[in-house]
């Protein structure tokens, strides 16, 4: 290969290499040639050689021997050589390399070059990789250029100054006067650079804040001009005039208005104007609105403006664009800590967003332990104000988090013994102690400091609740039942329990009396059943208890543990309690019953969304066991069989699960189901679990389909299966006219 092959040719050869080894060979030869060329004095192909080296560097190969060449090229008088030399410097040299200091002098000379293009190269390189020493050396030059008459140079000098201030904050005072005067520029590039410079100066030094607060009216005026100006093709992005500049100005206003009433007042009108007039149908507008919201929430704005800001975020939550929903979630999370009342009305949409399968969006769905901790914290601080449903919701959440039972009961016990004022906390604590008392008595729990708890201690705590005048009748009921449950979980103090229970047999409170009498009977006549009756409860399926108001197969004893029938469906009524947002995350475990209300408010409820939404959330909260329903084989051919199973049937909807299995010797790939239903039926197909069915029944593919209809008689479905089996593509059709009913209904 000729040593002076051009850049393009070399790239072609490298790309033509068929193996990694071949590529390495080519590159080694090229580098050797380039090195030889560098050693030769003055030849015409220097810039080409450096360019080749830079390409090789980008592929990941060492290129340090090019550093000196960069220095040499930068010092050249030819523009083409300077251009590639500076590029090389930015790629190969950084402030950690000694060679970087060598270019300081060249940069200094080039900053005063007659051609603005050369000046621009120097400025760009300094801003990109200038070390602290270089910055100190060249700061006066930059300050001089800030006053230049050429806006091309001014804007670059401004950003160079930003870099210098970041490296050496003390040099900031050198640029403060110039920064101020730059605000009166008309050129957007210069204005943009000036705003960034002022932002940087204010962030580094609070004295600058005071000084630049005086510029707030000027900044407000610039923003107003941008917002109300007509269409300008140069700066227009999707109907917004220069969103980049707008966002930077808003960010600066945020810093200036923070903790300062006067400055905040001066910008109130502008912020209201921007918030109402900006068109957010495209990303550019949304970006401006987002920055506006952040600014409103951070300065001393009036409450009307804050409500407006939160409403904007609420609107964002309903946006089709995932990115905008993510942004609104992150912002709302920051805001809910300080301004929760404003956030509450958007609870419903926040919940729907939590169903989004995207991990970034779901990041805000907390871990179980965080969830439980947070709700406990709420109960401890303001338990008196939470909704009544918090108690059964939390209980249900706790039962589902089986690995956290020990941790939870310990935490609740400690909360209980310190304070029994908060009734909801008391109720949840009593219930847990009753259920998981044996874990409490074991004493050890990984996630919490160990504390020895004796049976007497536990019974004392529960009796305190029972006897305290602060306890409501409901709480006393909880406590009594908990005491009773402990009779099967403790060993020594069963007599104590027996006596407590018999005492309350003559209690004036009818509810307590009834319970006590029944428990007494359990001790006396039905002692042989006591253990079975009081054993650990299974994970509560809120949905079924809501629908059937207590499954008839459940013991009447256990029913007492849920004082109110739980409404399984999401309730969208407005709330007025503390941190309802968090409580609502308990609601976010949707029952498998998907009512029409629920699907219609989901922001993105098309067929293509989230595969098995319910499955994911169920995973999050430990999973509910589905009640087994009969499955019917609807299709069987050549080893592929498709079964159908109906769950959760109501008068107007059914959830159908298809299960495909493969008994042939080879895998079935590309498995795909399509379904069609009559016009009176609505169909929603969830994403399948996969498209590969392993051979010999080693695995299955499942797909859930939700059907809603007005008349069950009309329910029919035609399903088309397409798949590849043993190399051939197949397609089959099956008509389903009758659907099996689930075991219970």
């Amino acid at each position, binding site marked *: 290969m000729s040593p002076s092959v051009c850049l393009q040719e070399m790239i072609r050869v490298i790309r033509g290499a068929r193996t990694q080894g071949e590529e390495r060979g080519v590159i080694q030869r090229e580098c050797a040639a380039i090195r030889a060329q560098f050693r030769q004095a003055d030849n015409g192909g220097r810039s080409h050689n450096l360019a080749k080296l830079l390409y090789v560097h980008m592929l990941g190969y060492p290129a340090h021997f090019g550093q000196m060449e960069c220095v040499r090229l930068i010092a050249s008088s030819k523009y083409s050589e300077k251009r590639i030399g500076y590029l090389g410097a930015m790629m190969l040299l950084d402030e950690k390399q000694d060679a970087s200091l060598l270019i300081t002098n060249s940069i200094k000379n080039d900053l005063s070059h007659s051609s603005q*293009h050369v000046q621009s190269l120097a400025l*760009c390189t300094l801003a990109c990789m200038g070390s602290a020493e270089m910055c100190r050396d060249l700061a006066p030059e930059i300050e001089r250029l800030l006053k230049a008459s050429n806006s091309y140079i001014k804007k670059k000098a401004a950003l160079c100054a930003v870099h210098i201030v970041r490296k050496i904050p003390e040099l900031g005072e050198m640029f403060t006067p110039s920064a101020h005067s730059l605000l009166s520029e008309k050129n957007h590039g210069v204005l943009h650079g000036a705003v960034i410079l002022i932002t940087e100066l204010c962030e580094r030094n609070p004295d600058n804040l005071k000084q630049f607060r005086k510029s707030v009216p000027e900044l407000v005026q610039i923003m107003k001009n941008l917002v109300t100006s007509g269409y300008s093709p140069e*700066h227009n*992005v999707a109907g917004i005039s*220069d969103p980049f500049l707008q966002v930077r100005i808003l960010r600066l206003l945020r810093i200036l208005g923070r903790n300062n009433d006067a400055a905040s007042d001066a910008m109130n009108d502008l912020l209201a104007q921007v918030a109402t007039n900006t068109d957010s149908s495209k990303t550019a507008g949304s970006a401006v609105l987002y*920055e506006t919201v952040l600014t409103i929430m951070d300065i001393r704005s009036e409450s009307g403006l804050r409500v407006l800001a939160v409403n904007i975020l609420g609107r964002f939550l309903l946006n089709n664009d995932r990115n905008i929903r993510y942004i609104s979630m992150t912002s709302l999370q920051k805001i809910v800590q300080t301004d929760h009342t404003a956030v509450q009305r958007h609870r419903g949409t926040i919940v729907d967003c939590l169903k989004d399968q995207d991990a970034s969006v779901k990041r805000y769905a907390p871990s179980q332990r965080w969830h439980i901790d947070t709700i406990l914290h709420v109960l401890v601080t303001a338990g008196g104000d939470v909704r009544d449903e918090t108690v059964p919701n939390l209980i249900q959440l706790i039962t589902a988090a089986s690995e956290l039972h020990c941790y939870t009961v310990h935490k609740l016990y400690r909360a209980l013994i310190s304070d029994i004022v908060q009734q909801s906390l008391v109720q949840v604590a009593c219930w847990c102690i009753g259920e998981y008392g044996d874990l409490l008595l074991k004493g050890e729990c990984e996630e919490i400091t160990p504390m020895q708890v004796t049976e007497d201690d536990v019974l004392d705590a529960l009796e305190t609740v029972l006897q305290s005048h602060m306890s409501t009748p409901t709480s006393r009921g909880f406590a009594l039942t908990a005491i009773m449950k402990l009779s099967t979980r403790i060993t020594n103090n069963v007599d104590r329990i027996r006596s407590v229970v018999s005492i309350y047999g003559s209690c004036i409170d009818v509810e307590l009396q009834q319970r006590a009498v029944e428990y007494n009977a359990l001790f006396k006549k039905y002692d042989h059943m006591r253990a079975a009756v009081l054993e650990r409860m299974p994970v509560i399926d809120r949905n079924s208890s809501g629908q059937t108001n207590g499954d008839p197969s459940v013991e009447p004893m256990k029913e007492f543990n849920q004082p109110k029938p739980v409404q399984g469906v999401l309730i969208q009524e407005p709330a007025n309690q503390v941190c309802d947002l968090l409580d609502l995350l308990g609601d976010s475990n949707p029952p498998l019953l998907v009512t029409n209300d629920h699907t219609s408010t989901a922001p993105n409820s098309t067929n293509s969304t989230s595969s098995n939404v319910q499955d994911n959330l169920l995973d999050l909260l430990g999973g509910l066991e589905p009640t087994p329903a009969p499955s019917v084989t609807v299709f069987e051919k050549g080893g592929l069989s498709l079964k159908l199973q109906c769950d959760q049937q109501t008068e107007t909807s059914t959830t159908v699960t298809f299960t495909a299995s493969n008994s042939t010797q080879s895998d079935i790939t590309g498995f795909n189901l399509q379904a069609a239903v009559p016009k009176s039926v609505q169909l929603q197909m969830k994403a399948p679990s996969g498209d590969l069915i392993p051979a010999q029944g080693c695995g299955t593919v499942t797909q859930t389909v939700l059907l809603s209809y007005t008349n069950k008689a009309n329910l029919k479905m035609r399903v088309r299966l397409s798949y590849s089996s043993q190399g051939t593509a197949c397609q089959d059709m099956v008509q389903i006219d009758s659907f099996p009913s689930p075991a219970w209904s």
Partner: protein
Amino acid sequence: MMRFLLLFNRQGRLRLQKWFIPLSNREKNKIVSEMTLTVLARPPKACSFLQWRDLKIVYRRYASLFFCCGLEDQDNELLTLELLQRYVELLDQYFGNVCELDIIFNFDKAYFILDEFIMGGEIQETSRLCLARHMEEADAFQETVDEYEKNPTY
């Protein structure tokens, strides 16, 4: 400010890298490999934003290339999407229907355009027209000087 901008294709081959903070080669390579792995593993309809270490990562796919940048806490992610869009438009305007091959074979030009658009991690020019004009002028300047050098007229 933006800390870095990376362009890589679906096979993880790096096509452009711009760093606005000083890092050793080892650290740079580590970040590049982590970024490529993380971004390439994301499902196609996923959100364009993700949190990585203490940075906000914004990425978008244009044809066969992923444009990925690392932002600091105060930066506006939605605006950065607009920034990436603007950069792609500039490339498109310069190369005429830009594709990955243009960026491979003319990576130096891609860098020059980037250096006219972003400096020190911040945008330096918000006007498309100005930027296109500056690039033309710079290229013309380079040609004139080269021409002059080749054929001195005296």
